């Protein structure tokens, strides 16, 4: 299945792109947001340091790492926020 990954702030700088399309091979178990993150962290090792501090969202709603994703989902990874 194909998903869109959105990255913000320094995560975007590390990956060099605000948006990535990724194909995920269907595994024995359902694919989660965490699976997408781990695949990304393999591609961009600098991301690994954010494992404990990121938040994630699916289709513009906050979602946990164990959230099961579906074909066409937009998955976003958010470093610690600093608005205001």
């Amino acid at each position, binding site marked *: 299945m194909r998903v869109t990954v*959105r990255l*913000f*702030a*320094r995560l975007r*700088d590390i990956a060099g792109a605000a948006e990535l399309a990724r194909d995920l091979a269907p595994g024995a178990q359902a694919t989660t947001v965490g699976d997408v993150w781990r695949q990304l962290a393999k591609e961009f090792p600098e991301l690994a340091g954010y494992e*404990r*501090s*990121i*938040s994630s*969202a699916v289709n*513009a*709603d*906050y979602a946990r790492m164990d959230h099961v994703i579906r074909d066409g989902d937009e998955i*976003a990874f*958010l*470093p*610690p*926020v*600093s*608005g*205001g």
Partner: protein
Amino acid sequence: MTTPLLAIGRGPLDLERVAGALSADPSTRPGQDGAVVTFLGLVRNHNVGRRVRHLEYEAYEPLALKAFERIAAEIAERWPSARLALHHRIGRLEIGEASVAIAARSPHRGDAFAACRYAIERVKQIAPIWKHEYFEGGDVWIEGATADPDDARARAEAERVACA
């Protein structure tokens, strides 16, 4: 054209417009409120010892708007008589410009102060917005709180700071 209560955009913020959106909203019945409290966040020329030149704000806009709606709903739950308007600016901001404008109205001033303060604390906790600081000698993404709207401890801390 009516001004929305909750908004995110690239244009300069206007406190009168934010407060006006709230007073014009149907949720505000004429004569019911005794207090309006506003907060304006401004870009400072210094931060932890660095001389700041300007900032760039970035947001995950649809989620940021939902975060603002969530904050308004939390306020409606905690202070039922208080109502909120909140505009956040993104893009490049110069020193002294406003990054966020908040207005809270209520029959009584205690609730308006608490709701306004709570709103800015929650924005900093859960709104997917990031500040890129350009200072003399470099630039850095500011990273504050790990956003988790369901974190009850963070919410309690925002209530504590709001002196609720």
